[in-house]
């Protein structure tokens, strides 16, 4: 970074300054979240209100874990639910979408253009619009109040299939033809040639799915009545709604931070791969 910094011109310095300003401004809520999560209760009621924490404390996190363990459902249960749902959904989406993406990109068969056309239209699909029919389907399948209802609807992800298909498109066909001449089967080509080459797309799809599942509130709210099967995102929403005002702000910020950190770590790890995938994300 330093080497590249030496080469930049005056106008680039101006640009850097402007962007730093914008970046800091955009980052205010995140800074706020971090600070509030570590504020002791006494600092929350200080007037005038402060942004930065003076005496950071773990008390909010301790309270979060203890506070709810005296209630009907311990906080750790929501955490566990979120974790298990996210992990299984991720595996499911990656597996299902790579298989579909591979076939849609490299095979020729009837109905392919019909299926592709449907996927392109459903890129704009908003799940919130079909809450009721989904409820009826979920009821009919008998998966209400199970972990499946958290997972299966997300496995059908047109965006994931689209991104992976676009990424596989740029893998040359000759690679597969050569393998076929050597007698490789489709399963072999898929697992040994395609999968190792589409790492960036898989990483991107994982991040997008992670966000969608981890942040999802609707499923817990509408399709799950059993409190022990609801997720952390739901717990957090009900929390901020039920306990308004400043007192909830610190506990809420503590959960908010817990919700944010895994996202941040994932993005930091895979940022370059995500941009690399986006090179091929165009709709032609």
């Amino acid at each position, binding site marked *: 970074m330093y080497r590249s910094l030496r080469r930049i011109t005056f106008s680039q310095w101006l640009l850097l300054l402007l962007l730093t300003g914008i970046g800091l401004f955009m980052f205010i809520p*995140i800074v706020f979240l971090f600070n509030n999560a570590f504020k002791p209760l006494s600092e929350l009621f200080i007037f005038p209100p402060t942004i930065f924490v003076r005496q950071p404390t773990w008390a909010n996190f301790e309270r979060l874990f203890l506070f709810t363990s005296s209630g009907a459902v311990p906080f750790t249960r929501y955490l566990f639910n979120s974790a298990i749902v996210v992990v299984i959904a991720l595996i499911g989406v990656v597996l299902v979408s790579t298989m579909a993406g591979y076939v849609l990109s490299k095979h020729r068969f009837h109905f392919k253009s019909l299926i592709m056309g449907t996927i392109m239209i459903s890129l704009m699909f908003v799940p919130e619009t079909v809450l009721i029919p989904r409820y009826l389907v979920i009821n009919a399948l008998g998966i209400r109040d199970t972990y499946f209802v958290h997972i299966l609807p997300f496995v059908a992800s047109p965006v994931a299939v689209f991104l992976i298909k676009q990424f596989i498109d740029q893998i040359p066909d000759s690679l597969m033809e050569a393998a076929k001449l050597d007698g490789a089967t489709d399963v072999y080509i898929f697992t040994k040639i395609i999968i190792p080459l589409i790492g960036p797309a898989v990483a991107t799809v994982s991040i997008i799915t992670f966000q969608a599942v981890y942040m999802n509130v609707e499923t817990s709210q509408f399709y799950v009545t059993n409190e022990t099967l609801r997720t952390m995102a739901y717990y957090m929403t009900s929390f901020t709604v039920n306990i308004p005002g400043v007192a909830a702000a610190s506990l809420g910020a503590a959960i908010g931070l817990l919700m944010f950190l895994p996202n941040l770590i994932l993005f930091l790890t895979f940022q370059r791969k995500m941009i690399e995938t986006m090179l091929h*994300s165009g709709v032609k």
Partner: protein
Amino acid sequence: MEPTLPSVQPSIKTRRRKTDLKQRIVLFIQECWRDRLSYLFLAPFLICFAAFILVPVLMAAFLSVTSFNGIGFPKFIGFDNFIAMVTQDFVFMRNTLPNTLQFAVIVGPGGYILSFVFAWLIHQLPRGAREWYTLALYAPSMVGGVALSVVWVAAFSGDRAGYLNNILMSLNMIDSPKLWLQDPNYLMIIMIIVSLWTSMGVGFLAMLGGLQTVNTELYEAGRIDGIKSRLQEVYYITIPSMKPQMLFSAVMTIVGTLQAGQISSQLTGMTVTPNYAGHLISNHIEDYAFLRYEWGYASALSIVLLMMGYALMRLSYVLFRTKEDE
């Protein structure tokens, strides 16, 4: 002999056509069987897609022309739901629709343009510095509206300890604390600001990727052809070169904008906001679906929302579709 020929030929023709059809069906089935592995690979996705997207959409379309309360069987009533929406549902016509349009018109194109401007600015930086700025801009959308609501509620809190109140009062711009989130006059503006804050999402990343695909030789060629300013460069070279990513980003923006219904209830803590000030179509759907159990009418609303999304997507295709000769 000649007169007999015409009567014979048609029968041969039809017979041939019949065998043709039969052969074609057999061939079709054979081809399908030959491609069975392709279908097998697609099956898991297609099954989930059918169960949770296709069937629900079709069911919504069916329910939208019925009267249905969740119990019993849906009763067919034709287009009454849609007629009622326009003629009888005053909240819809007076609040929901204008609110949704206002929100969508500002947050949709606004967030889209901001994403492009920021992505373009970041792209002008040297490679090593880009990642940090990308992170800073993308971070709010990662936290998501729900997790950030804690922050917004505190920032716009109605007492003197609220951050906005405190700042404005110390600047002497207001003399008494304002109830920002409870006041119908301000709720919509706050919803828009908050949504814009989190609008640098996947679409923003797609634009960053798209900017990298632009062939840099084109800029030099453009300079020779008489392009004078950076603005012209963006309009004549950059955007046309990254149309595919612009289109993908537009679709993602549409989804994000239409989805945003939770934000109003998150900010106020109520499903139905004061004076319907922050009432969007998705809140209206939730209201009719889960508070009033008028599922037929709620489905009609869903269909309207889906049609709006589809129309907007077609519009983006018209704007950004790569033409055959490009």
